[in-house]
């Protein structure tokens, strides 16, 4: 029996301790015309975001996530408390050249087409004409809008508007990217691409702040999260700290002969009572399954008039010394978006089920079910090892160091 680690596209991100964002005692009270308090949107919040990490602001609607984001961007003024972004006030103009922001809705000029939109924002970053054009082209390719770049943004679907919104947030190759509900309105392919992009950017040492009420978004990409409720931070820490169940383990393996299964279970039952052991068939999650279906359709050359899948992270976003180390991973990640990997081995949590012989027999059969493909964790490990080796050779370092 082989015990595999949970395989995920989420990398172990290497944030350092340099704080890019510092928030101390942040409070925001909205007031009415007469100055009377109307709503306490953010209440005495403290946190830090370190360079290179993906930091999640998680919470239900109206919990204060977006208000916090707008305070970080200087669009709102704190009632109390202190904010530093790159050591400066959020309203410091020059600092904004290091920031990319995707708002919760696509607040773009509806009469501009997507290329003009990127040209306009490129101008605000004082980019030279050639560089603007180059980046715009790469970004449009990346977000899958290069074929519709002459259509005005007002004619776009919500998902397409999110894509161009994301592109404008990256036009300056920012060091800090603030994404407010980035997957809102996107189809599953778009969601996956955005998440892959976030991970890729973090690999390059970019800092990402992600505000979302979608747990899967946060879980898939974030290193650390704060959970908001009622304007206050209810929990904060790394996902491992917050989600780990140290008193339970999960073993996943290829289908085993019935005899082997019985031996393993007998062994486990020596230490754990039967009602605490759960055996089931791993199922792929819906996202993976959907991506597989779409990929099959794409291979059959199905055409679409909407956004196409962005297959490449814009080359300029991969440029630079630090990016060289991430190039192969970026490629792997974007490849993953274009060609979804075999279904993940993550099983969906469900109610604890007892072990019965019938179920055991089904599980032990060599080909349990056509709808539940067998994962290929070993092959995946090989791919990762190859990527690591390539990466190491690029950096002139032996693997593992």
């Amino acid at each position, binding site marked *: 029996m082989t015990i595999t680690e949970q395989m995920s596209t989420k990398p172990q991100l290497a944030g350092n301790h340099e704080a890019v964002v510092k928030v101390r005692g942040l409070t925001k009270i909205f007031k009415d015309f007469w100055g009377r308090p109307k709503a306490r949107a953010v209440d005495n919040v403290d946190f830090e975001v370190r360079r290179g990490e993906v930091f999640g602001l998680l919470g239900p609607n109206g919990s204060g996530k977006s208000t916090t984001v707008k305070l970080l961007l200087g*669009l709102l003024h704190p009632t109390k408390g202190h904010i530093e972004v790159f050591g400066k006030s959020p309203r410091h103009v020059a600092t*904004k050249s290091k*920031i990319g922001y995707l*708002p919760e809705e696509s607040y773009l000029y509806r*009469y501009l087409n997507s290329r003009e939109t990127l040209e306009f924002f490129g*101008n605000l970053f*004082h980019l030279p004409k050639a560089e603007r054009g180059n980046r715009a082209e790469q970004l449009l390719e990346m977000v899958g809008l290069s074929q519709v770049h002459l259509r005005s943004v007002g004619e776009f679907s919500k998902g397409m508007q999110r894509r161009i919104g994301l592109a*404008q947030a990256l036009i300056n190759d920012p060091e800090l990217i603030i994404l407010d509900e980035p997957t809102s309105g996107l189809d599953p392919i778009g969601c996956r691409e955005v998440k892959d992009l976030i991970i890729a950017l973090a690999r390059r040492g970019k800092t990402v702040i992600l505000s979302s009420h979608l747990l899967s978004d946060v879980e898939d990409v974030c290193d650390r999260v704060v959970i908001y409720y009622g304007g206050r931070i209810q929990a904060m820490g790394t996902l491992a700290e917050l989600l780990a169940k140290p008193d339970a383990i999960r073993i996943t393996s290829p289908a085993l002969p019935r005899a082997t299964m019985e031996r393993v279970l007998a062994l486990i039952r020596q230490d754990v009572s039967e009602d605490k052991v759960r055996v089931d068939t791993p199922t792929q999650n819906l996202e993976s399954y959907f991506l597989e279906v779409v990929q099959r359709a794409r291979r059959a050359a199905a055409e679409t008039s909407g956004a196409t899948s962005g297959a490449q992270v814009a080359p300029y976003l991969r440029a630079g010394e630090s990016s060289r180390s991430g190039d192969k991973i970026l490629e792997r990640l974007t490849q993953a978006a274009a060609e979804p990997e075999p279904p993940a081995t993550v099983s969906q949590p469900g109610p604890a089920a007892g072990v019965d012989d019938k179920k055991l027999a089904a599980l032990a059969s060599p080909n349990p079910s056509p709808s539940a493909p067998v994962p290929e964790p070993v092959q995946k490990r090989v791919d990762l090892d190859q990527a690591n080796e390539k990466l190491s050779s690029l950096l002139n370092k032996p693997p593992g160091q």
Partner: protein
Amino acid sequence: MQRTLAIAWLTWKAAFRFRLFLVISSLLLVSVVALPLVIKDDGTARGFTQILLTYTLGTITVLLGLSTLWLACGTLARDIEDCQIQVVATKPIARWQIWVGKWIGLMSLNAALLAISGAGVYGLLTWRAARLPANQQAVLRNEVLVARGSAHERSYDNDIRQETEKLLRERLEKGPADRVDLAEVRRQIREQVRAEIENVRPGAYRPWEINLGLARHYLKDQPLYVRVKFNSAERSPSGTFEALWQFGVPEKTEVYRPGPMSLAPDTFHEFVIPPNLFDENGVLTIVFVNPNNSTLLFPLADGMEVLYREGGFTLNFIRGLGIIFCWMALLCSIGLAAASLLSFPVAAFFALGLLTMTLASGTMASAVEQGTIAEFNSETSTRGSSPADILVIPAFKGALAIINLAKSFSPVDSLSTGRSITWAQLGAAFFQIVGVLGGGFSLAGIWILHRRELAVAQGTQ
């Protein structure tokens, strides 16, 4: 500058994508072409041209002014309400640059629209002038399609003030008066003194000495144009009054005495006089003899004016458009300043209200002149006083001083009467209207936008 120009470029894009530019420029051109078909004139080429200039330039000013206010309020307030500014303000662009970028965008748009409509008016004028008989063309070239300097009699303000105070003192020596009466008595004496200068009784004459200043050096052998206006308390059976004139001083300069003229009251009359009637100091002496049985009144402000050729019409026309452009710049600043604080409909209402108040400043001027906001009592022919006067009158004075910075220029009137609009006037207009007034509104607007929380609005897209 790249950032500021990017914002300006955005304004142009919006104007074209929403077909705003097309609609406004079409509207302006239609008004320029269509107005001459419906306006009524006195039947002369000069009268028609004057009315054409007045109406078309007036219409252009009103249309452009309203669209400027509307667009200025809309371009910023809508950006804030629709939240696009939330994306722009998170880029490395200062808020003053956003504000100035919007201003530059709107003003460049205005410049283009003004150029198109101005070219339309100019083209129409020259086309129509070319179709007139030669003698009428000459009249137009000399009196309307020209830039003429203007000379007036010296100001009598000090004389009137001194004479008023002297008479008031004499009156007070005869008997005391309380404070309220004193103001009214002073006003009445002032009116009497002024009337003494303005009135020409039956059989009497009135001389004017008008100094042409430095212009005398290039006005030798050049004809001069006299523009007069008088009022009469009585009506004549024919509707006109006889006028006898003498220009120049016997034995000192050449003298010109035209034949008796029959002139209507309450309107301007213009006639040409021969060259070289002024003395070596450039003083032209004009004498009017009143052979009528009624007293005629020549207002001090515009009763007598001498006009002389200074330059061509084309440059004068461009300078006139320049002053209109300065007004647009002020309206643009007002609209943007209002939109920096208020939502679009409220900002538009505020800006239009301010414009209306400015146009109706005559009431304020009247109250200031009378020294009270109390109503005129027709039975006693006097005005009372109001307790609010102590606050309102100084406030009106202040408001008028500000309003007059913009209203003291009248390019449409100058162009339609063939008067010169000098570069100095254009410079003064730019300083007063764009620099002082527009600058004040701009600074206020930029400060408000700088302080404002831009993410309070929820998107309305």
